[in-house]
């Protein structure tokens, strides 16, 4: 193949333990990540995200199936030469400084370039603290150093396991920009796991959603997340008239919130529909007091998605 995908897995499976107590952490996972994308890997706690990433980084041997990076089985020597990873939280030698930690890692990969380390420390905002022992770093600083470590070899593929963990809101914002920059400015492929919907929505081009080790959805972020995971909540008067008008097109329910004078109408419509909802109401002479887009939590989305799966509904697992 002239230009194989950045990541390709074929029925990748990992079962921990044996017999009754065994845990199927990842089951028959088929992923394909094109080069140059920011790819989100979304799932709740325990879904199997980290286990998948450990298999990609050749830390864990698959029980079945295989994982390829840039067309080479990750178990082959040298297959990970153009990959950088941050797996499940940053780990460093606490007694070494940030800079020395990076030096040790770079030398381990036989690729020590002091100017590269200096530039990376600058990029992740640690230049001023680079000479301090990592033991004295805050969680967020370690996370940044972890990202710098992943980028040491100037990899084509960057695999980041929950990179915004432990960062404050400003840090999260900054990290998202940084990650998008890796793809958009430097042409890298980024594979990023998260359990936060909005994080994936704001940074990724495509997303795979896994639950209990199985992929339940895969597709472009825009389509996938908009489709089914939000609804509009509206306060309007007169209520009856508004409800009737909306029912012609959407599913509507009433919800009284203690303390609110008028009940809410909950409209099962994706956010892009909101202008049409308002237009319709205004056209019918209804006064619209408030329109709120409410996200389902990831958990309830998963509940819905997996019950689809068990009911064998039309939108069940993507393949």
């Amino acid at each position, binding site marked *: 193949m002239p230009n194989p995908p950045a990541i390709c897995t074929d029925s990748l499976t990992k079962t921990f333990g044996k017999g009754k107590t065994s845990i199927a952490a990842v089951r028959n996972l088929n992923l394909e990540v094109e080069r140059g994308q920011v790819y989100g890997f979304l799932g709740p706690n325990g879904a199997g995200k980290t286990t998948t990433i450990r298999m990609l*980084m050749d*830390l864990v041997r698959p029980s079945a199936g295989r994982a390829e990076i840039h067309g080479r089985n990750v178990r082959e020597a040298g297959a990970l030469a153009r990959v950088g990873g941050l797996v499940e*939280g940053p780990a*460093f030698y606490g007694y070494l400084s940030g800079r020395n930690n990076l030096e040790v890692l770079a*030398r*381990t990969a036989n690729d020590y370039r002091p100017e590269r380390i200096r530039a990376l420390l600058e990029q992740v905002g640690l230049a001023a603290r680079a000479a301090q022992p990592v033991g004295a770093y805050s969680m967020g600083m370690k996370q940044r150093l972890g990202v710098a470590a992943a980028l040491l070899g100037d990899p084509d593929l960057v695999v980041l396991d929950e990179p915004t963990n432990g960062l404050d809101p400003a840090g999260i914002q900054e990290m998202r920009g940084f990650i998008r920059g890796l793809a958009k400015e430097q042409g890298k492929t980024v594979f990023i796991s998260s359990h936060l919907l909005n994080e994936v929505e704001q940074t990724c081009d495509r997303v795979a959603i896994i639950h209990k080790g199985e992929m339940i959805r895969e597709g472009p972020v825009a389509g996938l997340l908009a489709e089914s995971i939000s609804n509009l909540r509206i306060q309007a008067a007169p209520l009856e008239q508004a409800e009737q008008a909306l029912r012609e097109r959407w599913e509507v329910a009433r919800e009284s919130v203690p303390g609110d004078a008028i009940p809410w109408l909950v409209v099962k419509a994706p956010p892009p529909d909101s202008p049409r909802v308002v237009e319709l109401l205004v056209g019918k002479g209804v006064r619209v007091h408030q329109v709120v887009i409410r996200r389902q939590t990831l958990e309830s989305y998963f509940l819905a998605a997996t019950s689809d799966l068990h009911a064998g509904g039309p939108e069940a697992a993507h393949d």
Partner: protein
Amino acid sequence: MINLLRAEWKKTVWNYKLTGFLVWAVPVGVLGFYMVMLMGGLFSREWMAGMLQTGSGIWTGDAVGAWGMVLAFPFTVLSRLLPLAFMAAVFAGEYQSGMWKNLIPRNRRALLILAKMAVVTALIAIALMAASALTVAGQGAGRLWLGWEYNPPVSGDVFSDFAVLYAQTALLGGLALTILAAMAALAAILTRSTLAALLVVFGFSTLDSLAMYILMLLARIFSLPEIVNLYRYTPQCNIDNAQSWFRTGAALPLPFETFSTGPDLGFSLAMLVIWVAGLTALVLAVFERQDITA
């Protein structure tokens, strides 16, 4: 490979607390001993003379003596625990710091472990060589002060004989240390914890040290005197036996009826190399298959 070794070296040596207590403590202890001796000499020549007698009386013996820490049975039953503790802590430390996940994708697992074995062995060898030099310097200074001789007088022959003996001792010490390093690596890989690795590796090491007595006991219990012949396959027997060949030119006398002298020098050296190779292969095989999940 040079870069990998430098990385291992840096992170091991810079772990000051660990290397300080378990590696540099040896030469620093020797230095401290002779500093105290010299200071005491200001007040009492007798006291100083007493401390000087802890040496072997000849500088060649003093120089080689430091290697006793890994070679001189039965002293080694306890003294080996220091390098073993260091090695187990270094190997298990990689699990405890969670660093394997950062290291393994960057190089081959086999090379990562081999580089570690090489560095821990080299560090202890360096500490022992420093202890050799400091012992000779301390003894020399004390003897000069008291006007005692420090034999043998240095000549070309004496020195070349000494160089050969020292090289032989260091070779044997290196083999013994590599066996310890492989045992420590195996224990750390299997237990992933410093404390558990320490216990396992101390157990292994003590079994080996006391193999002669254990085999004698088993021979009694099962009334099978030939069991003691197995002693020739243990690291301990071959380390002692090779030392005997190097020092005296003869095999080690053994207290068994069926087996009253140690094997040939060639057998013993081959046996030690087999232990090194076998344990190392086991370490690589186990590590290669291990899931790194923390």
